[in-house]
């Protein structure tokens, strides 16, 4: 790690060091700010978040029992769903009317709980799809190969680099459908990186992943932050949360009930109540 990278890690730790955690608290340098986000489905309040800020260059975990509204909040923030009310801004830019795909263009990319690797495309094509700004993607340019050939090779080079980083380079020309579940997760993450995002939002990246791969994924996620990106991820596995996150936000029944460093959260009574009060698998008590 060179000096610049180390800065991010230390800056993140420093930023969180003296904060006394309260739900919805402000952060020194937020990349994502959301206020008053409300969403209900026919009588049930799915999300009711007064305030949430995500610190830049940090890894923030979003945890909570099932049905707490984490994925819904993800969908709302990334424009895949419309809230009933609320405002939110990414990097200072108001996202209120911005639809799904535009948030990704702005640098906010997300993955899905059920991996969406495109099985009918090869691995390398999946990766090339991720690149933004390929002018060949407009159909009139698409007709004239000489206009996009150069761009395509550059994109392919970058894709190959990422693939070797994620150890998928051997499978480069295979259909993504032939990959194992874990490999597909890696592919989705690698593909998301092709968009050169500022904020990476991972929806349950460890779901259904075997322990060996979990370790590897942990390292990949940490590396994202080390390279200057911000990570916000939803997770149930408390080991992972404890291992890699700088900050933890806890949701229950649509509201944020606690925030803090992983240690602080483990001993927060409100959080323990929320978890023990529902049928959550892993108890927080084990991590104390």
């Amino acid at each position, binding site marked *: 790690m060179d000096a610049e990278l180390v800065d991010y890690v230390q800056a993140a730790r420093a930023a969180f060091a003296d904060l006394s955690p309260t739900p919805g608290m402000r952060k020194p340098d937020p990349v994502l700010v959301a206020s008053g986000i409300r969403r209900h489905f*026919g009588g049930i309040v799915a999300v009711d978040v007064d305030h949430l800020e995500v610190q830049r260059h940090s890894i923030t975990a979003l945890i909570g029992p099932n049905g707490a509204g984490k994925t819904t909040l993800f969908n709302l923030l990334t424009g*895949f*769903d419309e809230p009933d009310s609320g405002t939110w801004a990414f990097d200072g830019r108001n996202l209120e009317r911005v639809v*799904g795909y535009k948030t990704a263009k702005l640098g906010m990319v997300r993955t899905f709980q059920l991996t969406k690797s495109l099985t009918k495309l090869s691995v390398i094509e999946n990766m090339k799809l991720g690149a933004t700004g390929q002018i060949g993607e407009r159909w009139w340019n698409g007709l004239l190969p000489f206009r996009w050939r150069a761009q395509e090779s550059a994109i392919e080079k970058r894709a190959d680099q990422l693939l070797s980083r994620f150890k998928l380079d051997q499978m480069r020309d295979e259909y993504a459908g032939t990959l194992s579940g874990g490999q597909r997760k890696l592919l989705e993450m690698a593909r998301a990186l092709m968009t050169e995002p500022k904020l990476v939002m991972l929806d349950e990246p460890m779901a259904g992943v075997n322990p060996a791969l979990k370790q590897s994924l942990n390292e990949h996620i940490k590396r994202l932050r080390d390279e200057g990106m911000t990570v916000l991820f939803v997770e149930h596995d408390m080991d992972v949360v404890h291992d890699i996150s700088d900050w933890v936000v806890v949701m229950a029944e649509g509201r944020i009930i606690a925030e803090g460093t992983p240690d602080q959260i483990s001993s927060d009574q409100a959080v323990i109540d929320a978890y023990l009060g529902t049928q959550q698998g892993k108890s927080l008590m084990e991590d104390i």
Partner: protein
Amino acid sequence: MKVRNRQLATLAFSVASAAAFFAGTGAASAAPPESCEGPAIRVLVNDQSTGDKVPLPDVAVAINDEAGVLVIEGVTDEKGVALLCLPDKATYTVVLDTATLPEGTALQDESNTKVVDEQTFTTNVKTVAFFTGTAVRETQGYFGRLIDVTVNGIRLGIIIAICSVGLSLIFGTTGLTNFAHGELVTFGGVVTHLLTVAWGIPFLIGAPVAVLLGGLLGLFLDWALWARLRKRGIGLISQMVVSVGLSIALVNFYLMRFGGFPRRFTAWNDQIASSFGPIDITQRDFVAGLVALTALVSVALMLRNSRLGKATRAVSDNSELASSTGIDSQKIIRIVWFLGGALAALGGVVRGLDEGVEADMGAGLLFLMFAGITLGGLGSAYGALVGGFVIGLFVEVSTMGIPVFPELPLLGFVKHGVPTELKTVPALAVLILILLFRPQGILGQKERVG
């Protein structure tokens, strides 16, 4: 179960009473005073000056063959009907002796001869009508026409509503958009025609049998085709394409066996319209409409109150959730296909009474059915009933203009009314507008459309 039995009993009772009513009165007007052994021409002479069809007795008519030679002549009876027997099916000319018309009446279209082509002898008896008096409709005025059009719209609306319920429920329970549904409607008309005209079974037996067969056809299709596709995991888009193939196959099968020309059920063809206040409607149309309406209401009530109906709605809304509460989704789906097929067939019968049976009558209605269920909400059974009814009414009423509307370029149809041949066009406009502003329809659930 008790509630369901009650609904069925009501339905049966209505049908039975309608049947009795019909049998009692219909028989008199349908059965000719005598019958012929071979082909015949039945001549009707009516006066229309007062707006009702008034039969004219003692009018002399003669039938000549192609060479002009007289074949047979006769005189109309007290019902204004003369049945003249013919030696064979050929081209004839019917001549009315205007000298024998009552004082003060004259034929509406100046000609007192009508040619009957050999080709048109699809059944043994060919009917030819002569009308005297002035055309009544012209003096009817705007409101008279409006009422007529509204009545037609209600009839069309009811037909579309009962045809679409099945379509909507099939979508709700299996996710399939059944592009062959129109052919289930046509099935009702075609089979009824086969039973009653070709095989001579009385209409009141033939029609219900056709409806039942329609239901069985729906059941058969599900068993033979759709259930197997679902089990194989074949996707919905592929299933839609399969339904297209089925539609092509069925339409052409009907064309092959039934022919391309519209045909009517021979019973109750020449109805005399009776007046209910400002509404003119024939007995036949009235009873047909009543039966359809009863079916409509019964289905609505059944869906709402009976256990079966509630289970159906549950499966239609969310089939996984429904099966977790112990409802047998597969059984419900089979019932839905039976019901859908039967109702579609009923719609076909009623439509056949109105407009005659044609091999592609269902296909023409399919688009209106889709407009109706989109308006009401795809997957919602009530939505289909309401939406279908509204579309039917709207389509007919759109032919009336709003006279007080200003004359604007391109919007001339608002003032003058949509021309009758284009009256289904506004339904498309409705379809597009609904999808733009409220894609879930009036009664549908809002879904995330991304």
